[in-house]
């Protein structure tokens, strides 16, 4: 328990220190702006540092741990989100979204074929709704060149 607190405090403290140091480089002097661009970020970093210190106050309560298998699924899901962001432009909205939906569906315990099918339907529905219904452009990707 103590270790978890230590990690939390260290992470917070480091983040606050890095952000405050970075803020110290925001320098510019105008007579009309006595405060300058650095003061506000430094105040924000100070609040963060206060949060880091407060984890050691009595009665701060404990953080809840992450279930290992669940943690793995979360890493997989976050990874698939990154993959989606990378593939969105080259593959196009429909293909990338169908793929992403299928991956998530499987992570959530759906059968692969059913997830893929649901993903395709969902992607086509959203594409139709946004591009034709709302006039919002979404990338076409490979469908553009292939079709």
């Amino acid at each position, binding site marked *: 328990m103590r270790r978890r607190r230590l990690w*939390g405090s260290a992470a917070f403290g480091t983040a606050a220190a890095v*952000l405050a140091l*970075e803020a110290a480089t*925001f320098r*510019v002097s105008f007579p*009309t*702006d*006595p*405060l*300058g*661009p650095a003061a*506000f*970020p430094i*105040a*924000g*970093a100070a*609040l*963060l540092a*206060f*949060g880091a*210190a*407060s984890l050691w106050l009595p009665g*701060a*309560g404990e*953080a*809840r*741990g*992450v*279930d290992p*298998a*669940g*943690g793995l699924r*979360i890493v997989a*899901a*976050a990874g698939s*989100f*990154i993959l989606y*962001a*990378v593939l*969105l*432009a080259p593959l196009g909205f429909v293909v990338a*979204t169908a793929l*992403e*939906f299928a991956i*998530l*569906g499987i*992570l*959530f*315990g*759906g059968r692969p074929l059913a*997830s893929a099918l*649901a*993903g395709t339907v*969902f*992607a086509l529905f*959203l594409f139709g709704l946004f591009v034709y219904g*709302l*006039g*919002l452009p*979404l990338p076409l990707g490979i469908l553009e060149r292939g079709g």
Partner: protein
Amino acid sequence: MTESFGSLLAGFGVAFRPVNVGLAFGGVLVGTTVGMLPGIGPINAIAMLLPLLFAVGLPPESALILLAGIYYGSQYGNAISTILLNVPGTASAVVTAIDGHAMTKEGRGGEALAMSAIASFAGGTLSIIGLVILAPLLSAWAIRFGPAEYFALMVFAFSALSSVSGRSVSRALASTGFGLLLATVGMDPNSAVPRYTFGQLRLFDGIDFVVVTIGLFAVSEVFLVLEKTGWAGHAAAGYGRVAVRLRELSGAAWTMVRASVIGFFVGVLPGAGGTIASFLSYSVEEKAAGSGGRFGRGDIRGLAAPEAANNASTTGAMIPLLTLGVPGSGTTAVLLGALLGLGLVPGPLLIEQNPEVFWGLVASMYLGNVFLLLLNLPLVGLFVKVLRLPRWILMPGVAGLSFVAVYAVNQSAFDLFLMTGFGVVGFGMKKARFPLAPVILGLVLGPLMERNLRRALALSGGEWGVMFSSALAVFLWLLAALAILLPPVWTRIRRRAG
């Protein structure tokens, strides 16, 4: 005051145009569907649908009506999943869950759903009278606010939110700091110095609050559900006929009136909002009922009180938002972002310079309430069908909708990276019990706060005394200090007493 009611009538004239009625209908429908998704409350529903709202390019008054529909719809959607499945998407819905879900277990789910809609409607209706009376008064008074007073008011909003959003004030302050830091990302408008952009051109315009909100709230929720294995979906219970008997309704009439009054006045205070309103009205009703009540075991008054209070506090919270331009909660912060996105600047001048917008907004909020009642009672069955979809369809659907909304903000895949990052951060914050609402409030209020602070100091030539130079400013600083210091002192006194 008669003038106010006249303006309100004109507002209704705008709201009742056929296009706008259609939009209110659509907004309630979509808002209810999204708000009902497990763990997704109004703050998510609005953030998810906002980019689409901007993309459609409606005139402001129509966009406002759609927004109001989405807002009220998502609140009711949240109540549906709370009552039937016991998965409250917001802190205030936790109170609704107590007797609401108990009623479902008794097979009276339909009655609970109907009561929730009626109580929300009652809360909305009664509180709007308060708004019509109070908003112009406060607005006339708010014109006296200078930069120093604004800054103090925003400090008060943060300290009030910090002292109510969970047990740990210091964690809430750390969350606030995080939000304020996020707000500084991008080009500083005063000096044109890039801050925290780390050489990334795409960060020069700052981080859009939609990206942050969806990442912190919706994506982290997907992760949270994903973590729990063996969570075998929800078996939505049967709920019977969606109606309330007249005897039950008249028995809860005074409950709804009292809860609406409590909710409205609590809602006006920054930071307090729906959660306190719900808890307070629930405990008042529990005491009033005495031994005759079945509170906690499915008493319909235990459901009517938080639902009416929550909706009334929503209207109350519109008062500081619209007259001062200072939101007091995560949800109103997102609403402020929406209004600014539509080119409307809430503040003391709004009601004077754009009365048609102000009263149009009030009228459309009310219309959203009316549609909620008319639509949801007959359509509840349809919504419940969506809830019964398996988790492997529902959660990827939430994720997919988040992707489109985030992508739509700037048409940029870079925002999807940011969203994923905020999703991971939000998950960690939820695990470590850091409240998320102060982050959004910090992000939205940060620029306003910094601008007012720098303006005040520029006017005084760098003399800090200007921050405390008026009685109003000193009063607001005192309130801010009290909001932070009072709760821990109070707990200690109570602990010592007994």
